[in-house]
């Protein structure tokens, strides 16, 4: 579904933030993108989205795979309402009116935002804003979700609702690339992981493979990540 082979990428010419990263996301798979602060996770995601100017390598979406991106910081138009944001997103990707409206209504109910559907999202709380990002993405029913730190600002109930939807989408065949710091949740839901450290790929594999590699048979994801990072240093 998504094949990534980044040779180098950075915010300025001759100043690479990430180098030699390659991984893929298959249909129905949830790949966790892990790493400490400043490791290069967000740069990797921005490169995949085509937002970086200075980069070399290739990012390919198989077939006509469409993606939806859920950013770490919610982003909005100051003067469009929640519903108008959804209308813009659905129209821009050429969704049929009846289809997206029904899905949008359903998701708005699911995330309990019915009372603010005609309000400006710039007036929402952090959690509500994040929910609008989730609704936008899930409404589009893309082939691939690219998610950057999805749990920030979400309350436990909303986090649970989000994870349920992710499972449903994976069952539909959608792939998910998720960057996160919340390792205990990642351990439960991700199929495979990519660990980035100082802009390079420190490890890639399943939790069992990492346990074997680190010699920690019963270790948690946190234990394995810790050990792998130590080995990298």
């Amino acid at each position: 579904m998504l094949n990534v082979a980044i040779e180098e990428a950075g915010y300025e010419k001759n100043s690479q933030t990430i180098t030699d990263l390659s991984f893929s996301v298959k249909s129905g798979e949830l790949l966790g993108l892990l790493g400490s602060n400043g490791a290069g996770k967000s740069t990797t995601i921005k490169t995949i989205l085509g937002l970086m100017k200075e980069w070399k390598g290739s990012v390919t979406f198989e077939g006509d795979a469409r993606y939806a991106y859920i950013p770490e910081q919610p982003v909005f138009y100051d003067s469009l309402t929640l519903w108008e944001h959804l209308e813009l997103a659905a129209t821009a990707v050429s969704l049929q009116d009846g289809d997206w409206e029904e899905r949008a209504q359903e998701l708005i109910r699911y995330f309990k935002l019915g009372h603010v559907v005609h309000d400006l999202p710039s007036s929402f709380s952090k959690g509500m804003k994040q929910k609008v990002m989730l609704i936008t993405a899930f409404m589009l029913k893309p082939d691939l979700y690219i998610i950057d730190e999805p749990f920030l600002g979400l309350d436990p109930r909303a986090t649970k609702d989000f994870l349920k939807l992710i499972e449903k989408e994976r069952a539909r065949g959608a792939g998910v690339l998720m960057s996160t710091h919340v390792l205990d949740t990642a351990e439960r839901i991700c199929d495979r992981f990519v660990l980035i450290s100082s802009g390079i790929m420190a490890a890639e594999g399943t939790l069992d493979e990492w346990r074997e590699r680190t010699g920690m048979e019963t270790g948690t994801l946190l234990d394995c990540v810790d050990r792998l990072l130590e080995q990298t240093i």
Partner: protein
Amino acid sequence: MTSFQLLKKRVSDDRRYKLRDLRTALDWTVWFYILIPALIVSVVYYQSWWIMAPEWLNFVPEQAMMVPLFLGATWWSLRVYLEEADQVYILQNQNLVDGLKKWGMVHSLLKGSVLTLFSIAVVLPFLITGWNWGMEQVVITGIFVLLASWNVNVCRYFIDLTIQSIWIKWIPLMMVNVVSIGILVFVSQVGWKSREFVFVGVALLLVLLIAQLYYRIKVKGTFFHDVMMERGYKQSVTNLLMKQVGVSSGRTVLVRKKPFLFKGSKRLRKQGSPETRIVDLYVKWLLRSPGKVQYYLQVTGWGIAAIFLLPLVVKVIVLLFALYAFIGLSKADWHEFSERSYAQLFQWDQQLRELSAKKASKVFTMPCFILVCVMTGVAFPGWIGMLLFPLGGWVMMMGSIRMVHQDVRSSSPQ
């Protein structure tokens, strides 16, 4: 650090920030071709006005001069130089915060005085040479202009603080301005002759100013509002040069919950193609952003005024400039809309994006430019202008939009 030292640092930071922005926009070509020639012409004209008043002054009533004088004298803001990080670092030190506010206000009032003096100096040749004002009349009017300028700007702060709606805010603001101009007209024509009126008037305005300033220091809970306003003042040059690009749209104290136009997310047109719907959303976004609409209105208004006032050949140049300005504004606005962070969350249908861009470029350009063309036709001698300019303008506009669309297509992200 004392509050005075803190103010000095903030004022110099503020000045550096604005100068940096100005330097970015005003390179040597702007100085060489526009600003220096404009300055030389202005000085020459100003000197000539001291010798002989311009002819057009015969058509301007004496009282009308109070309007530009008032506007010039009040072109400043009451600032307190607070920053967002102060809530963490200095808000606990009440003395320091109060001191900063006080010095900030003193600095603002001094700035107001300088601007008032400058405004009076600019209109002085008209008053002295044109309308034969005496020194006493000028000085007394000047004192009232200064007191009005101080009072009005403190009052404007309170209006901004208490009224959230930008539309409703205009009502008291207009009232304050009209009343002030009325007082100045009365003082300059009649009041200055009565010594009692002058003393009582000055005393009253001073008491009003002191009361307002005292309340300004005592009023609590204005920190976030002050920070928001300070951010606006600091970025005023950026905002002027780059529209709203330089203004942070972060969370502020007073956040509008519902849009003031087209409430309920209703579509502008019930039926329509996908590109029509995208353009409708673009129109809503733009119309709900008064700062953006203001630019179209300004170009239209100034364009029409210039066309009526300037000679024939220059009218055509103004017309061409207006077309260039409208298309430039439309292009920049569409770019801002379609490249916004939210629009990066999904993959656009490229064909739809191009069709929408083409339609969007006409939405505001067409009515504004055709209006300017019609007005040029009216200002043109004979009936032929009424036919020639709207028709020619239409053809030129469509051609220009086609060219711009080619450019948008080639530069849009794939």
